[in-house]
Structures are given as C-alpha cells and as structure tokens.
C-alpha cells in the first residue's frame, strides 16, 4: 500500500467518523414551547426525545428582540447547573430553578440589570442546600451577604472575624477570582463552625478591598475584611439616601487613574435607575450594585471600598431603615512608572501607562553611529515620594551614558544611586536621555578595500524603585542593535604620470 493510498484511506475513515459524530448530535429537532406566566415573565421549555422530555427550562423576561433573558438551567443527572453565557449578557426578571422532574426547587432569583437582587436560597429544601450553597458560594459569593439576620454573640462574631483575617492573611488572594474562591469557601466552612456569626456577618459585613495597580511589579491584591464600628454606622445612618448618593458622587475621582472600579460601580449604580430610595428593594439594589461591582472589578485597578451593611445591628434598633453605605477612598500607594521613547514628552497620558508600547523600544545603530533614547520616570501613585533609579551599564561593545536634569548622571544611575525629586500624581516626570555609543574598535573590521560593521545587540533596562517600599518598582527596556554591514572603499584614483622635470623647473 502506497503512502498516498494510506492517506486517502485515512481521510476517508476520518470523514466517516466525523459524519457519524456530527450526525449523532441531537440538536436539530429540539422543540421549544413558551408560556406567558404574566407579569412580563415567560417560561420556555426546550424538549427533545420521543416521547418528548424537557431538557431545559428558562424563565425570565424577554429582550427587545423577543429572546429570553436569563440563565439556562441545564438538567443533568440528579442536579442542575447554570450555564451561560446569558442571552444578552445581562439577566433580568425572576428565575425559577427546577429539579430533574421539572418541579420547582424552591430556589428563585430576581435579577435587575444583571444584578442579583433577591433570592430565596434560604427557602431551598435543606437537602438541596448543601449543593446550592456550594454553588452560590463559589460562583456568587456576594449573594451570601444577603442572607441571615439572626443575632449573634459578640464573642462568636469576634472569633469568626479573626478567623476571616487569619484565613485571608494565609490565602493572600491575588485577584478577584482568588477572592471569590476564598470568600466562598471560607464562608462555606465557617457556616459549620460559626453559623450565627456568619449570619450576622452577612448582615452587616464590612469589606475593604485593596488592589494594587498594574504598574506595580508586585501586582498583588490584598483584601481584608473587618467589621464596621458602631459609632461609624450611626454616623452613616444620620445621612439620608440622597446624601448617600451625593457622597458617593463626591468620592468619584476626576480624571485620576486608575478608576476602573469606581467607574464600574458608578455604572452599575446608574443602571439601577429609576431607583426609588423609598423602594423597599433600594438597599438591596445598592448592595447588589456594590457586590456586583466588587466581583466585576478590574483586578488591575487600585481601589479601596468599604461597604457597611448596618441594618439590624443590635444597638440601632429594629426601627432603623436598612441602608448600605459605600465609602471609596484611594489606597496610598507609589506607582513608579518608567517609559521609553525617542523624544521628550512621551505619550504616557494618552497611551496609558500600562501601554506596552512605551515599556520597550528598539534602536538600530548604522555604521557604529551613536543612538539615543529618552527615558521618563514618573510616579502614577497618589503617594508623593522620590524614586531611586538604576540604569543599565554598557559593556565592552557599547558605552552607555545618561544625561538628566543634573547634567551627566551616568555614574549615579549605573550605581543605582540616582534619586529623583519628589514625584506625585501632578508632578512632571523626570526626563533622562540615554546615549549608546557602539565601540568602533571592536565592532568594525577595517580592510584595504572595505569596512565590515559587525552585528551586536544589548538590552538596557532602567528601573525605578519606591524609596518607601523596595518591592514596588517599574522598569522599561531599550534594545540597541548594530547592523552587520559592509562598506566598500572605492579605490583611489590612479596617480597621474610624472612628468619629467626639465631644466628650469
């Protein structure tokens, strides 16, 4: 059998098997039936098989295209699971979970603008609670905040919160996924050991989350939980709902970076309109917005959010309106930023300091010519301080020198001793010029008729380090390369013939 015959036969086999696999997919004849349940809610059942059986049930509102909005409940085996993505990226309306036998499980969720508002998780059958609780704890930990308002002894709560802190210190969640996993798992475990404390914590928990910006090489998110103080809560309650919104607006930064989280929160809050502060659901909407923003936050952003959920706090009394308060503040941090370019006034602001284009550049030296680059060092953080800058030294093929505000800074930069003036958010960056001169003696081969320029390259990095925290730094790289080139030397013109000198010359 020739290789060609083998290949053709194999292709035929592959074709047959693929046809078998594709043909066996039972997607072509799934039927659906939609029932209007009233109140803008539709239930769509997807059936397959003969006799037909319901394989999927979706309940929810319809979007403008008439498509169902909601999370699919795929019934598999003894359980169900929520599958996505959602039809339009959002969820709206009330969703009812059904079990394998198509009976309601007792679990319903209400979403508004894609944000979970209420859920009947507490009403779910106890036997189902374990699975559902794990599911929710893993996928939607913020939801757990909304359940349970039982009283708790201060000792138990203190112990629980201490365990939270210790667990967090150990886990060190680095991003929102870590955070969600940690939070869900921790609450799940704590439910067994401190059921009352968990319930109380969920009713007035205070979350502080700190997330360091991308400019940090550390790039580590530190998130902490702590309880709000009674006096602080009382002060918060002294404000009415409109004041809360006004305060919130006041906390929004004006053109400061980074603000991804704030923007996300603001957008999610605005999406709640028309939100009526007198609406009993208003606090839940606010809470859902906060929690939604928390889980949707950009892990590269920098923020601190304190969410205080004070209602049913013992000393407030039951008559106090439930209200949540969100306080935003910037975390003091240093954000060293080093960017490179070929001219002063680098487009840091326009390109964004996380733009990779300004973190590295390449220069090509032709015929051993000197090349230069501009390095700008700034502090994008909100903590003003000086930065220590170290510049790469050259090698035997390349000589590197630096010039800056103080003249020739080569020695200080190469030794890592150069310290910038105090830099802050609104302080102009320090501009340094890096000059790289190829070593002609080593990179040129001179012959009688030609000069050969050799190819070499060097990577020169500049690193700026915070003076308060040596682990906070940033770097950019300039790569310099000489091109191999042969330059031919034209032959000298032939000497003119000597004329005999005659007498008298």
């Amino acid at each position, binding site marked *: 059998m020739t290789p060609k015959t083998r290949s053709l036969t194999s292709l035929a086999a592959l074709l047959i098997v693929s046809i078998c696999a594709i043909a*066996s*997919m039972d997607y072509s004849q799934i039927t659906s039936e939609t029932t209007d349940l009233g109140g803008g809610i539709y239930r769509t059942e997807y059936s397959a098989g003969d006799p037909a*059986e319901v394989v999927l049930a979706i309940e929810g509102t319809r979007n403008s295209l008439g498509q169902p909005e909601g999370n699919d409940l795929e019934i598999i085996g003894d359980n169900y699971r929520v599958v996505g993505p959602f039809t339009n990226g959002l969820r709206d309306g009330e969703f009812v979970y059904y079990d394998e036998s198509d009976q309601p499980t007792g679990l319903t969720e209400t979403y508004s603008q894609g944000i979970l508002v209420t859920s009947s998780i507490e009403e779910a059958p106890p036997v189902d609670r374990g699975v559902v609780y794990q599911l929710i704890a893993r996928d939607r930990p913020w939801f757990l905040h909304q359940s349970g308002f039982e009283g708790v002894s201060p000792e138990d709560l203190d112990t629980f919160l201490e365990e939270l802190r210790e667990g967090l210190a150990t886990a060190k969640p680095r991003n929102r996924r870590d955070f969600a996993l940690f939070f869900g798992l921790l609450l799940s475990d704590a439910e067994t050991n401190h059921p009352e404390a968990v319930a109380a914590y969920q009713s007035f928990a205070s979350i502080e989350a700190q997330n360091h910006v991308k400019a940090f090489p550390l790039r580590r998110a530190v998130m902490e939980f702590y309880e709000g103080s009674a006096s602080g809560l009382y002060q918060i309650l002294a404000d009415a709902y409109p004041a809360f919104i006004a305060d919130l607006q006041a906390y929004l930064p004006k053109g400061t970076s980074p603000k991804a989280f704030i923007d996300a929160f603001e957008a999610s809050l605005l999406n709640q309109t028309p939100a009526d502060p007198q609406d009993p659901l208003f606090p839940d909407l606010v809470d859902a917005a906060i929690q939604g923003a928390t889980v949707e936050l950009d892990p590269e952003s920098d923020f601190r959010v304190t969410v205080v959920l004070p209602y049913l706090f013992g000393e407030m009394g039951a008559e106090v309106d439930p209200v949540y308060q969100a306080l935003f503040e910037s975390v003091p941090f240093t954000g060293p930023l080093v960017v490179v370019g070929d001219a002063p006034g680098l487009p840091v602001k326009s390109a964004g300091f996380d733009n990779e284009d300004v973190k590295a550049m390449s220069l090509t030296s032709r015929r051993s010519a000197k090349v230069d680059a501009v390095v700008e060092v700034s502090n994008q953080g909100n903590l003003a301080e000086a930065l220590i800058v170290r510049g790469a030294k050259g090698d035997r093929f390349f000589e590197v020198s630096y010039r800056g505000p103080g003249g020739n800074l080569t020695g200080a930069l190469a030794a890592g001793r150069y310290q910038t003036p105090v830099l802050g958010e609104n302080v102009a960056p320090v501009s340094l010029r890096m000059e790289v001169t190829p070593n002609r003696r080593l990179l040129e081969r001179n012959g009688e008729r030609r000069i050969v320029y050799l190819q070499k390259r060097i990577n020169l990095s500049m690193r700026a380090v915070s003076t308060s925290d040596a682990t906070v730094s940033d770097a950019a790289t300039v790569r310099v390369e000489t091109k191999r080139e042969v330059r031919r030397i034209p032959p000298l013109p032939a000497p003119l013939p000597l004329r005999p000198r005659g007498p008298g010359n």
Partner: protein
Amino acid sequence: MESSTHRGSSATTTWLIASAALLPGGLIYLVLRPGHPLFLDWMEPPGTEGWIGHIRATASPFAAVLPAPFVYSLPQGLWAFAYALIITALWGGTIPRSRWGFFWLGSILLVASGFEILQHFGAIPGTACSHDLIFGMIGSVIGGVWGWQRRIPCPTDP
C-alpha cells in the same frame, strides 16, 4: 504472492470489523436514544416519514431498562474503536520511519476526545460528558491495540 493475498485479506477484514463496530453504534442512536439525531432527518426522505418513529416507539421500553452508558456513551466508544482500528492498521507499520504515521496515530486521540472538548467549550452543540470521553478513550485504546496487531507492513519492511 501469498503474502500479498494475506495482506489484502487482512485489510478487508479490518474494514469489516470497523464497519461492524459502527453499525451497532448507529442503531443505538437510531432506535434507543431519545432526542432527534441529525441523521434521522437523512434517513427519512419524503414519503417515508414515520417508520423510524414507529421503530423507536417500539424500542423505547427496552431503552428504558438499559443502562444509561450503554445508550449514551457506547456509540462514542464504538466509532472511536473503529477509527483507531483502521488508522493503527494503516499506519502502525510505518512507525517509526514515517512522520505521517505519527500524525495519523495522534489523530486518534484528537478525534476521540476532540468532540467532547469542543462541546465542553460550547463550540459545537451537545453536552460534554465524561462518560463519553472515557468510552471514547477505551474504544481508542482497544482499537489501537487490535489495529497494531493487524498493522499492514510498510513496503520497505524486510
């Protein structure tokens, strides 16, 4: 000459075994499995509507008592077996000299698991199922071992 006849006979037998494996897999889909596979549409040209439905209705009581893996996952194992058998028989003899041999042998695992992986990520319709994957792998291994024993020697073999 005798050797050639033997090889031809062996290749034919291999094809027959593979086809025989595909047949019950198709029948399971056709008769026992709920849902409506695409090839039911192909097998019901105009004028013949209903006869397959009649067969399926008749067989449905049997389907109810059969274990679920038999109905849902065995077909996957059977066609994976058939593919592995053919490919290994065709290309096993070229190993290790032919790069194409490695390519085609590698395709066995890809084909056996690829559809499930694509379903898992929603790239193609259907529900990814670990049982299907396991049956597919088992079928591939059995088919591969059997195909290796029946591999057609490469012409350059001594």
